[in-house]
């Protein structure tokens, strides 16, 4: 995702701190490289390096190739890479039985490139084991019987020879294609490198490779490993050249991954024009849109391009095509539930929020059991199936208060409990000094059914810090969802755009959701809306408009190829726009909430509202059904 390069600032080079990447960046760390301008090196884990270049915080990054493809629009720096031509040792599937006898493989999800490679290799062998995500340690601890594990990096090296069977994935790739495999390479934002800078990276590689033994020894000592084995790993197993065979291997990987809808298809253009300097929009918008409509995975750069340039109708038609493929029955769902805000006392003071009151404020409230009972009874009487329970971060309410509340609710009312956004869960973890999993376990034991996706706003920290300084970071938000999903809880995902965010930020948000969804498949649905300016908020109103809403929803439908449902946010956009949005990729009308203020101000009852919603859905050309929180139909579509 591309912003204009500023060549007067120092070049920001981000490298992965792993040992196997060190030969490529050590020269920068040692100040042994001359470039056209000043540069500085930042080291981090692969996910953070990918985030930095995607969000414009890095100019050149040593990226796993899958991440580069997802981001899109980057230039491949020629000459160096981390790859293997044959066995690599550090990326392998381990098992106590031969591969074809495994029915489950636990995947260490820390490297998407390796996960995609594993999928491709398994598919090529006609194997379809169940793949389950896990942390590295978890994955390996499950190995036994018909369960195997994909392990990556140090974790893989550490268990070499421990299990009866090992499938080295780079070797398997070589066997499959006859080509080397490339795990990572240097990628640059277009235009940041001047002529000659490319060679500096090649020179840096030469510098590092000359010192492999030293680097291995240092690492071996620090981690108590065998230096000779590490040296051999760096020298013999890995291949640092991005030469013609390696480029062919990379191109082959991108092509196969795109056909399997694992990665965006745009990637090869970076490879065939390794030193491209111009814009990479060789593809026509029409072509891009029709690929998107067909379900090709889109890169971030492609998403931004669609958001900025694609005509409204074309976006709508493409999103509608995706909707139709995912939901060929032509049914639009809605849920009957109620949004209950149990407290408005909050310590966070987000700039876009008009709802909260600071601790001690006269208008602060916590709903009493009596008030709650009345609200919930009304929901039950009206045929509602769920309560959406959210509130401020009230320091007086402890975890036990929620547990009591949930137990009471579940005892007294037959309603689903869609409760507490990640922010509230983190808040509880903080005040109880527990980890997120422990909090979620206790809440679930007390009755929590699913987690609402609120508070995501824009999952780009630069934006979050400006609109909600005290709010959790993107990683924290995603982290809570990851834990919840791994526990089997389902959640929705949301996006609130239109504060200080750019189209690039919005697409980055979608990419982060998509990536987590690849890992957990725990998001049921996605909703977006624009920031709602009102009295009491402290951000200028956005000039979003209806077109922007429809465009954003349509692009979200196209980007989030792994999320089943997209909802029309009629509550924020109004039912008229909500109805139109059904033709822009949405298959759900969200919740027919009935809040007392809605009911009384419109002077109507719930029944009329639901009928009205149903009429609008039908008039838009769909059948309509009520659903539960997991999108199961509760009524026959009609």
């Amino acid at each position, binding site marked *: 995702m591309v912003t204009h390069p500023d060549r007067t600032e120092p070049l920001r080079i981000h490298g992965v701190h792993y040992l196997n990447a060190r030969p490529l960046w050590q020269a920068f760390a040692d100040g042994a490289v001359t470039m056209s301008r000043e540069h500085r090196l930042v080291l981090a884990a692969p996910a953070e390096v990918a985030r930095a270049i995607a969000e414009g915080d890095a100019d050149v990054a040593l990226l796993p190739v899958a991440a580069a493809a997802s981001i899109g629009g980057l230039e491949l720096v020629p000459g160096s890479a981390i790859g293997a031509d044959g066995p690599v040792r550090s990326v392998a599937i381990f098992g106590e039985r031969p591969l074809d006898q495994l029915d489950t493989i636990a995947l260490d999800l820390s490297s998407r490139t390796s996960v995609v490679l594993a999928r491709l290799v398994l598919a090529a062998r006609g194997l379809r084991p169940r793949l389950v995500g896990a942390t590295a340690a978890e994955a390996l601890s499950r190995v036994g019987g018909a369960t195997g594990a994909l392990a990556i990096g140090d974790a893989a090296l550490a268990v070499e020879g421990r299990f009866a069977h090992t499938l080295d994935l780079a070797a398997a790739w070589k066997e499959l294609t006859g080509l080397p495999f490339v795990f990572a390479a240097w990628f640059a934002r277009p235009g940041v490198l001047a002529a000659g800078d490319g060679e500096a990276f090649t020179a840096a590689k030469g510098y590092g490779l000359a010192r492999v033994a030293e680097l291995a020894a240092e690492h071996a000592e620090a981690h108590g490993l065998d230096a000779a084995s590490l040296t051999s790993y760096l020298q013999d197993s890995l291949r640092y050249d991005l030469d013609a065979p390696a480029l062919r291997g990379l191109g082959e990987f991108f092509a196969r991954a795109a056909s399997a809808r694992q990665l965006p298809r745009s990637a090869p253009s970076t490879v065939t024009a390794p030193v491209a300097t111009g814009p990479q929009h060789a593809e026509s918008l029409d072509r891009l849109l029709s690929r998107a409509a067909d379900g090709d995975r889109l890169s971030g750069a492609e998403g931004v391009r669609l*958001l*900025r340039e694609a005509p*409204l*109708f074309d976006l709508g038609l493409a999103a*509608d095509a995706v909707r139709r493929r995912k939901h060929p029955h032509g049914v639009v769902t809605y849920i009957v539930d109620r*949004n209950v*805000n149990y407290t408005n006392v909050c310590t966070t003071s*987000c700039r876009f*929020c008009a*709802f909260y009151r600071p601790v001690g404020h006269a208008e602060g409230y916590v709903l009493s059991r009596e008030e709650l009972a009345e609200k919930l009874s009304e929901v039950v009487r009206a045929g509602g199936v769920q309560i959406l329970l*959210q509130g401020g971060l009230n320091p007086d309410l402890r975890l036990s208060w929620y547990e009591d509340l949930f137990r009471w609710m579940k005892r007294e009312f037959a309603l689903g409990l869609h409760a507490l*956004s990640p922010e509230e869960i983190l808040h509880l973890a903080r005040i109880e000094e527990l980890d997120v999993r422990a909090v979620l376990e206790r809440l679930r034991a007390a009755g929590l059914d699913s987690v*609402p*996706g*609120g*508070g995501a*706003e824009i999952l780009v920290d630069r934006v979050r810090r400006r609109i909600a300084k005290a709010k959790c970071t993107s990683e924290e938000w995603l982290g809570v969802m990851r834990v919840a999903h791994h526990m089997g809880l389902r959640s*929705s995902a*949301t996006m*609130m*755009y*239109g504060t200080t965010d750019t*189209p690039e930020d919005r697409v980055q948000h979608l990419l982060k959701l998509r990536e987590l969804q690849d890992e957990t498949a725990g998001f049921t649905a996605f*909703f977006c809306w624009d920031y*709602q300016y*009102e*009295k009491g908020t402290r951000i*200028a*109103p*956005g*000039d*979003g*408009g*209806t*077109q*922007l809403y429809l*465009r954003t929803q349509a692009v979200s439908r196209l980007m989030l190829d792994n999320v089943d449902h997209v*909802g029309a946010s009629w*509550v*924020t*956009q*109004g039912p*008229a*726009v909500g*109805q*139109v949005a059904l*033709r822009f990729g949405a298959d759900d009308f*969200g*919740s027919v*909430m009935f*809040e007392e*203020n*809605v009911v009384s*101000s*419109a002077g109507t009852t719930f029944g009329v*509202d639901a009928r009205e919603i149903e*009429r*609008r859905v039908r008039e*838009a*050309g769909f059948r309509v059904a009520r659903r539960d929180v997991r999108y199961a139909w509760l009524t026959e579509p009609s």
Partner: protein
Amino acid sequence: MLDSIRDKVRRGERLDAADALALFCEPDLLAVGALANEVRERMHGDRAFFNRNMRVEVTNVCVASCLFCSFAKLEADSPGAHTMTLEDAWRELEVRMDDPPGEVHIVNGLHPGLPFTYYEELLRGFKRIKPDVHLKCFTAVEIQFFADHYGMTVTDVLSRLREAGLDSMPGGGAEIFHPDVRSRISHDKATGQQWLDVHREAHAMGMRTNATMLYGHIETFEHRVDHLMRLRELQDRTGGFQAFIPLAFHPDGNGMKNLPAPTAVDDLRTVAVSRLVLDNFAHIKSYWVSSTPKIAQVALRFGADDIDGTIVHETIYSAAGSTSPSGLAYDELVRLIREAGRIPIERDTLYNVLREHPRAALPEAAAKVRDRERPKAKRRLPVTDAAADVAVDSTKESSPW
């Protein structure tokens, strides 16, 4: 069917009644919209028109009893009935003379007790206050009523009113022309044929007029098609219509309150089909007061090229803030159009360009033209339709899911 219609449209061929009906029945709303947008962009590029106007209703007393009307009162002394004195009517303009609208738009009930000179004086008075103000007054229904009530010919009525300052006529009162519908919803006012005849007269005198259609009540798609065809025929002969304005039926406080209002999908479809069928009308207007500002924005992609005017009413007058209310509404309209990715063009009643505003650079850039100087007070366009009543403002939670 859609393919053959698309071919016709691209060849510049006229659509027939069967095509029009097929478009109304086509399930793929976006395909119809995209086609209408093609035509709209061929005619107007990215331009979208609006004007600065003000509306005056001097009386709501009306001898007719249209089923859909929640405005009229049968007797001058019925509760809620009001008739302005000439001075009161003129004052409406006088108080706005520091930032005057270019157009005064007057429509009234059919008042049985006023002399014809009242209307003549009314027009003269506005022209005295602002000689160059454009007076767009009296629907064809009113003109026909004047002719019947005061025993004159339509030509005489129009001549005398023009003499007094009438510049053009609005398009109201058309409802649905077809007698099967009209006899049920508007049995005691000008017939469809009379409505068309009045406009023909006006056009013959060199006056420009608009046309409307009230849809979404008891009429069928066939009736809508018939309505459009009759308008197109007359326009072929006179060329006097400027804009066509589809008006959605609103079931509030009237004799058809048990009917649901048409939904946004119908609103957009009707705009689109109108654009495609009325090939001899220069402009299709999505009247934001009727369709809501949000849907008017979308309509600018479904065939509409005009969203009507600032429509300053005294009710908007009370809006808080330091800028004048007409200025406020003006900016909002410009913003509305820019957000829709179009170029805002302020026009006069006859579509002369008064001011062209810069467009937003990209569809997305709309989000970047944020007016940071905007005062803190809530500044929303008044929303008159049902869309506003449902929860839109009641979601205090930042994230309802």
